[in-house]
């Protein structure tokens, strides 16, 4: 659905994005993470044909950003970092302006505006000038604006930034709903919890692409897989016995707890637990140690810095 080849953008001698190669699959929520100035917004702008790449190219929804910018623009929706609404116009008129620019017929405009305003609980506010809207309402309206022409690809730049938790949840739920409809969503965000919840795959950018995979695979690649076993009566011989197991790659013990590095926990956990129980251990619980996406992200950025 989105494919980039060596996408590069240089501003006045400063490289914002360098040699970006990636492929976003149809219907996936693709998280685009990176520190400030990493080139996330620049990449999104290139893909939405708002700015041109210095080198390289990309295809969005089958259209080349270099040779078919109009077709690209018509097939994508974009939620920019700032909602950018016309404060003096009503919510409905704001949307109508954009629906007309996307070439929607009058009947379709009315249907679409009503549908999305109702979906995001803004229908009752449709006649109010948006200058009086809260941040959350403005963000929801900007999101609706990006979807009126039913684009198969949606670019979202920090969709929940500066929103209160309730408004952020509404927007997140709506993004999840869009994903279920089969749209491809390119999500630039600093909110790692949001990326974890929503994204099928994530890319970490710091001018160059640092990593690209599912959150789970990134986690495993960086930290391996670890099982935590809590034992009421943990004894030194139990620790030694576990360390001696051939599939155990690493072990930390202490405070009634064993943290074991495993390659295939689904296959190895039963043997591990059986060995402990055989030694008289009273196993209280067994769980997988999951590193947060934040730990993954920070580790990747740190690796990149040191490299």
């Amino acid at each position: 659905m989105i494919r980039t080849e060596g996408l590069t953008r240089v501003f006045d001698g400063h490289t914002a994005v360098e040699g970006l190669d990636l492929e976003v699959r149809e219907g996936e929520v693709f998280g685009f993470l990176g520190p400030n100035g990493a080139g996330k917004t620049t990449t999104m702008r290139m893909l939405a044909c708002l700015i041109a790449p210095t080198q390289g190219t990309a295809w969005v929804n089958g259209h080349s950003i270099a040779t078919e910018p109009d077709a690209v623009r018509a097939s994508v929706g974009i939620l920019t970092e700032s909602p950018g609404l016309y404060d003096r116009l009503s919510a409905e008129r704001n949307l109508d302006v954009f629906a007309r620019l996307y070439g929607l017929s009058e009947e379709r405009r009315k249907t679409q505006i009503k549908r999305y305003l109702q979906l995001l609980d803004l229908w009752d506010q449709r006649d109010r000038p948006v200058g009086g809207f809260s941040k959350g309402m403005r963000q929801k309206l900007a999101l609706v604006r990006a979807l009126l022409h039913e684009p198969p690809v949606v670019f979202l730049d920090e969709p929940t930034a500066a929103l209160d938790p309730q408004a952020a949840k509404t927007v997140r739920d709506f993004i999840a709903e869009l994903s279920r409809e089969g749209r491809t969503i390119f999500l630039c965000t600093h909110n790692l919890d949001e990326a974890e919840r929503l994204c099928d795959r994530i890319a970490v950018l710091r001018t160059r692409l640092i990593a690209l995979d599912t959150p789970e695979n990134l986690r495993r690649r960086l930290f391996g897989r670890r099982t935590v076993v809590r034992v009421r009566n943990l004894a030194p011989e139990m620790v030694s016995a576990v360390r001696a197991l051939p599939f155990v790659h690493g072990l930390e013990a202490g405070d009634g707890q064993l943290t074991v590095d495993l390659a295939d926990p689904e296959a190895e956990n039963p043997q591990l637990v059986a060995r402990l129980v055989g030694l008289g251990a009273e196993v209280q619980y067994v769980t997988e140690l999951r590193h947060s996406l934040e730990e993954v992200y920070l580790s990747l950025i740190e690796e990149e810095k040191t490299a």
Partner: protein
Amino acid sequence: MRVRTIIDKEWEEIIRNRGVFWSLVLLPLLMTAIFLGVLFFMHLEVVRTGTLSSNGQLPAYLAMYSPADAVMIMMVNQFMIYFLIAPVALPIYIAAYSVIGEKQARSLEPLLATPVRTWELLLGKAVAAVVPPVIAGWLSYVLFVIIARFLVSDVVMRFIVAPMWVLSIAFLGPLFGVLSVLVGIIASSRMNDPRAAQQWSALFLVPLIGAGMAMMFGVIAMSVWTFVAGAVLVAAVDVVVLRVAVRLFQREAILTRWK
């Protein structure tokens, strides 16, 4: 279709911005009222004394008229310049703000992300900025003609509705208006401060006022042919300036350098 959408949006924003809207409506009406007031007091003076006195020597081209008519014609010619430049002067501030306003509201990026072409955007903004002042100017002129009929002699009236002025106000003014608006839009798209854009745009008035003065004093002899030639020339310049405006409207620079 997209040009019309931009025009509708711009007009709605103007109408909803009371300060801008009333300045567009009231300023021409106020100026017209002042002109009519001046004529009214001149008329009273003529009724009372039978003539009008001028402070200095009247221009040679008025020598054939009575002193009262000559003074009134001189005044009326100056008023006519206003009706000619109203569609040029009034929209400058709207035009100068048109792109900067979008930059400030951060609405330019979503707008440029739509399939709208640069020429459609700029033409829409230019037409939206120039039409209200042109209509306001025309209506003010019609009002002026209707009321002046009761205040001036037939000789003076012939100057007020002289084909040179009527054609100029009807066609030349709006064409110059489009030109001034495009200059304002160029300034607006190249600058980040609306005040700077307005100041630079206002400079465009100087040559036009000069042209009006030249017409008034007969330096430019206006025949139908010179009028048609002038109108065609200004229309052609409008098209060229629109193309220049499109070239100078650098989407990337506007999006990436505006903070």
